[in-house]
């Protein structure tokens, strides 16, 4: 399997079928006596920003230093939780854990507007 083409930057879908970000990074485990294997998938905005340009990540971190959700490190999805790779990557986790920003925007901005 081509990791770069078939996993990286694919849509992540949680166990209820909800979109939960993209695969922004992959953690490889290097082994002495065998080829490297995938240990986990990562998803998170700062990681993505770093892949666009390291300076963008620094800028994003400064911008979000004062406000935003508390937990903003990339979410780590262990490889055994990956269930299926096809049009998207289905994983056995709950999207709620993975989307601190979605929740932050909902609770602090959108949820406060009438009719939301």
């Amino acid at each position, binding site marked *: 399997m081509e990791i770069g083409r078939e996993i990286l*930057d694919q849509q992540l879908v949680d166990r209820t079928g909800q979109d939960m970000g993209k695969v922004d990074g992959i953690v490889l485990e290097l082994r002495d006596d065998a080829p490297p294997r995938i240990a986990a998938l990562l998803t998170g905005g700062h990681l*993505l920003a770093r892949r666009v*340009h390291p300076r963008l990540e620094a800028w994003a971190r400064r911008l979000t230093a004062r406000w935003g959700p508390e937990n903003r490190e990339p979410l780590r999805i262990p490889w055994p939780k990956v269930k299926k790779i096809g049009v998207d990557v289905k994983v056995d986790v709950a999207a709620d854990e993975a989307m601190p920003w*979605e929740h932050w925007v909902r609770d602090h901005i959108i949820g406060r507007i009438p*009719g*939301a």
Partner: protein
Amino acid sequence: MSKLLKIALGIFTSIGGFLEIGAIATTAQAGAAFGLRLIWAVVLGTICVIFLVEMSGRLAAVSHHTIKDALRERFGPRVFALTLVSDVLINLLVLAAEIGGMSLALQLVTGISFRWWAIPVGFLTWLLLWKGTFGLIEKGVSLLGMVAVAFVIGAWKLHPPLDDLFAGVLPSMPSDRPALYWFTAVSILGAAISPYLFYFYSAGAIEDHWDEGDIGANRAVATVGMSFGGVLATAVLVVAAMVFYPVGIEAERGEQLALLLTSPLGRLGFYLFVATLFICCLGAALELALSTAYCFAQGLGWNWGENVRPRDAARFSLIYTVMIVAASLLMVSGIDPLQLTLFSMALTSLILPVVTIPFLILMNDADYVGEHGNGWISNIAVIVISLLASVVALVAIPLQLLAG
């Protein structure tokens, strides 16, 4: 019934994405300044947009990916970020122009300056997205947008000389004012080939759950829907050429545009023009705001959809809200809506290859479209037209700015 729904998507995409302030302002300017000579730009733009819309529907039906989603996957974050930045910039300017178009329509009826209307009009647009569903917006705008057919009736009643009409279909060199001629030509192309239009269409196809069985219907919808837009745009050009060109009116101001349909249709023509301007710009504003939110959500993997409650797609709703607020404020500042329109349409042409080239690569990648890849005709047509538009824009925009 489902066929009808698909056609509604095509007509809506066409009304909102094709005939809007961009197409009305650029074709009216073309007709007023150059008579029927620039019809070829409308034809070329229509051909290109038919291909692009058909491709975006086919990509969605076969791969179940929207364009943005596939772009991110195939080319990674950098190319995606590049296209996202250009989308946001252009969409913001064009959205401001559409809000300006609606405000202008209200100014024509009430006499109150468009600057005062920008906020209420922006609020109306936002409220429709906040409360409405995709189907309601889609069908409402398609139905009301039929009023635009008034331009075809107007063009018909003015009896344009058929020789000149057909001569205009073939590209020609300008006899005078070459800078304005080419600037107007690329503005027309930019107005026709709006990227937000096919992003929107591809998202609509995913929201309507298209699959491989829909490829044939998609081809028909793209062709019929976009040709409909092309005919309407041509009709505006013809009306302007018959009404303004002979008496030397340049159609540079909103009040002048209002006279377009009074000549063939009298007082009723005035109201038909105002209604067309308002509804088409509303459709476009809805598409632009949604399209920008789609770009973010699909490229970054957020929840998205016009049919879920705002709180269940919070970031998605935030993007369209911010876009509408920013665009309304731009209009309150008093920028002339028509000048902004012409400039942002030319700018769209300039960056067209950034959008079309990665898209064409996707449409020739068997991993995405399998056996349903592009034929050589659509590849060549899209690449030639978009490169041409970009190169001409590169030359014409500075020349036009110098000429003031």
